[in-house]
Every structure is written in structure tokens, then in C-alpha cells.
């Protein structure tokens, strides 16, 4: 097996495992649009990286985290409804990124940023994916109970002593980090699908939140394997192939006869 294929598999599987549990929170807390907005800012992060001459993975993470913080602050203002705010931010961030890339005369392969370049994952990318991924998973494990508590009911969680704004902020930052490291795999236009589709598919089989989080990771891994195979044998674009396979799994799971669900 050629090296680039091994890197692609390792990178894809690493992202899918982290995206499973976080994608579940995106589904439970209806944050799909929030994820999309962060993803759209990634190109801006790339141009900032070029401008400051720092590592591009790092600058994308900084940009996503920064935008997440701005969104949290703006949500508190309550001047504009949240979905309007997200819509403004998503497309402004993408346009700013495209304009910045043009102004700075950066030579980038736009397609690879928009739709991912799974087969071009480098060992250095793997370092970012696994470093970031392990940090995210450790925090998730540590904060699992309070995260579930605020997802069930924020007021109940507050009365029982959970610092709700802090936990909510940490969840947003974790999602920002995962989106930044996942951009290489499926590209900024398709990242949300890698978060949402496996989690939504896993919902069908899960009776507890833990089963859904792990199931989403497994379905994400299957999508990566299937997508890379499709790309290898039929020469299709890798990122979109991953999404197509996860969609097929989603449809297959929802066509199964229903058992008693939780």
C-alpha cells in the first residue's frame, strides 16, 4: 500500500473517531448551523496563516476558536436572532477568506480547501489530527457528565451546581478544534456532514447517549474506509466519496425495521 494511502486512512479514521461524540452533541443541541459557520471561517484562517507566516493548521484552529468566542459574545447581545447571526457570519467569513486569498496573492488550491484533500494528508497533518484529537477526547471524557447534564436541561444542571456557561463555552471550543483538524479530510464545505450524518445514523441503534457517541465514531470510520475505497477504485474525489458513503449508511440504517427505541 502506498504511503499516501496509509496517511489518508490514519488521518480519516482519527478525525472520524473524534467527530463521533462531538457530532452527537451537534445533533442533540441543534448546533449544525453553528458548525457550518465555524467551518466557513477556515479559509480566512489559511490566509491569516500565510500573512503571519505561521503553521496553517495552527492558524485555522486559532481562527475557528476565535470565531466561536466572537459568536458566544454576540449571542449574549441578543440584538439579532442566533440563526440570522450565524448566517451573516458564515458567508461573511467565507467571502472574507476568498477576498483575503486574492488580495494577498496566495497560490492555494481552492478546491482542496473547499472539498478536502484526503489523499494529500502529510505526516505533519497526522501530528495535528492526533494531537488535537487526543486532547479533545480527554476533555470530553473529563467533562462527560456535565456536558450531558446541560444537554438534558440547562436549568436543572445549574441548580445541581454545573457551571453552565463555562461548559457550553468549552463544548463550542471543542467543536471549533475538531472542525479545524477535520478540514483537511472533507474540506470546509463538507465538514458538518462528517459531524452530523454518522451521529444521526447512530441514533437509530442507540439506547443511551454513550452508545450513540461511540456508534457515531464507528459509522464515521466505516464511511472513511468506504470513501477511500471508492476513491481508489473509481477515481472519485475522496472527501465527497466519504460523505456519500456515510449517507448510504444513514439510509440503510433508517430502512431497517424499527425496534423499540430509547
Amino acid at each position, binding site marked *: 500500500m502506498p504511503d499516501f494511502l496509509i496517511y489518508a486512512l490514519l488521518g480519516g479514521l482519527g478525525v472520524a473517531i473524534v467527530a463521533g461524540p462531538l457530532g452527537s452533541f451537534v445533533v442533540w*443541541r441543534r448546533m449544525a448551523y453553528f458548525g457550518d459557520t465555524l467551518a466557513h471561517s477556515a479559509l480566512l484562517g489559511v490566509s491569516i496563516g500565510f500573512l503571519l507566516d505561521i503553521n496553517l493548521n495552527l492558524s485555522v484552529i486559532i481562527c475557528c476558536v476565535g470565531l466561536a468566542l466572537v459568536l458566544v459574545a454576540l449571542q449574549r447581545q441578543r440584538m439579532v436572532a442566533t440563526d440570522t447571526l450565524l448566517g451573516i457570519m458564515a458567508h461573511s467569513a467565507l467571502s472574507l477568506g476568498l477576498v483575503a486569498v486574492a488580495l494577498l496573492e496566495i497560490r492555494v488550491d481552492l478546491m482542496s480547501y473547499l472539498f478536502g484533500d484526503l489523499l494529500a494528508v502529510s505526516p505533519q497533518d497526522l501530528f495535528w489530527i492526533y494531537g488535537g484529537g487526543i486532547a479533545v477526547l480527554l476533555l470530553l471524557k473529563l467533562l462527560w457528565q456535565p456536558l450531558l447534564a446541560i*444537554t438534558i436541561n440547562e*436549568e436543572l444542571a445549574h441548580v445541581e451546581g454545573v457551571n453552565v456557561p463555562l461548559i457550553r463555552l468549552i463544548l463550542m471550543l471543542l467543536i471549533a478544534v475538531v472542525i479545524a483538524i477535520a478540514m483537511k479530510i472533507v474540506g470546509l464545505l463538507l465538514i458538518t456532514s462528517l459531524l452530523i450524518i454518522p451521529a444521526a445514523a447512530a441514533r437509530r441503534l442507540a439506547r*443511551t447517549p454513550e452508545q*450513540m457517541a461511540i456508534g457515531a465514531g464507528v459509522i464515521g470510520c466505516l464511511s472513511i474506509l468506504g470513501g477511500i475505497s471508492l476513491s481508489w477504485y473509481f477515481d472519485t474525489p475522496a472527501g465527497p466519496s466519504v460523505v456519500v458513503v456515510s449517507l448510504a449508511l444513514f439510509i440503510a440504517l433508517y430502512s431497517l425495521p424499527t425496534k423499540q427505541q*430509547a
Partner: protein
Amino acid sequence: MNQPHRHEPLIKLDMVNLHFGQNHVLQNISTELHKGCITTIIGPNGAGKTTLVRVILGLLKPDSGTIWKENNLRIGYMPQKLQVDKTFPLTVERFLKTAQNCNQEQMQAALNDVGASLLLKQSIHHLSGGEMQRILLARALLRDPHLLVLDEPVQGVDINGQLELYNLISRIRDERGCGVLMISHDLHLVMASTDHVVCINHHVCCSGHPEHVTNDPSFTELFGIKGSEQLAVYSHHHNHKHDEQGNVIPEKEHASSSNHKGCC
């Protein structure tokens, strides 16, 4: 009304004020919640009952006034309703475990306590309104609270279930000795099973024993003669007379002669 309390206080509110914009929702509210005592907040719609409870729970910060809480006070809160997103897979068992780490026996015991023994493995999304109320109560109990806070605990429960639930709350208080704070709309059922009533309409209109409150002129003004008449029927124990309007004529020492558990 200001008798010395036999039980130690859990929470004291002193001159609490809260505005929502121009609305002065809570006006100089002072009250106390005690161990082993069932306190019920009543008042008309929009009187600030839920707001007051949210201030007590710490969900809202008052503009002025002080709230004293006993050190390490553990509150078991039963919200009015709990809407869990359908995408969130949750069984009753897993939901109870979020209260605190507890084993199978403790969970089953809590469910037996609230009369929901068969629901452990059920999905939370398939419960009826009454079942959900019981599960929320069981979860609050699993935290072994010093103070149980119930926001309209009988909403969506049929009339037999309501009586049962109030009896259950009284029993829990007797067995565990915890304080209970309830909000209620329905006047007569709750009066029978409460020790202390705080009647509010932005400010505290009157407070004290149920019998005392129903005879208070400001209560009659708030709920009308019909309301107090209805209440009198349920809270007296045929040891006093009514005047021609149906109001109870107070007798000396009457308020302490009834069969409630004697706190407040």
C-alpha cells in the same frame, strides 16, 4: 404569622426586588424556608411565583435584597416540565443516573417511592405527563436533598393522581425531614397538604398557616369570595362557623388546632 419556628431555616430571603424592564416583578419579598416544612407559593397568573422560585434557585439574580442559604444546601429541583430532544437517546435508568452515581437498588427504591416501579427500562420519550412528573420527582429524591423545589408538580396529572402526588410529597417530607417548596395554581388540593402558605402578587400579600391565609382580607381580595369559600371547605375541620358570606369566623386558638404537622 410570626410565631417562632421550631425548625432551622434553610433559606432566608430579605427584601428581594427584581425588575424585568419597567416591570417591578418582585417587590420587597422577605420569607423563610424551613427544614421539615412544606411551603406553598400561591398567587394569580403573572404574580411572579415562578420568578420568585427561580431567584431562590439562583437562576435569576435579584436587583436588590439578600438571599441567605445554609452552607452546602443540596436542592432537589423538579422543573414544571422537561423536554428532552428526541435525538437524545435516554432511558429512565440513564436519566436517573445523571442525578448522581447510584446503583440499581437505589434507583429502583426511588421509583418504588414515587409509584413508578415498572418504568426503569422505559425510554424517556414515551412517558405520559404523569409518569414524567414521577420520574422527575424520583430523580430529585436520589440527590437526597435538604430542600425539594417543585414547580407546579401536578400539572398534567388527573385529579386522582394529583391527590396521590400531594400525599406522596407529604410522606416524603415526613420520612426524610427535608424542606419542600411548591408553586401551585389549584387552591384547595394543595391547602390540605401544606404547612405554610405564601400568597404573592408581586409582593407578599399574606403568609402563614393555610387557615390563617384563607381568612386574610387580602387573600379574599385576590382570589375573590368564591376562592376563599372553596378553600375554607377543604381546610377547616368542622371546628368553626362560617359567616353569611361563607367566610370562616375565626375562633381563638383555632389556627393551631388542626391536624397539620406543626411547623412554621
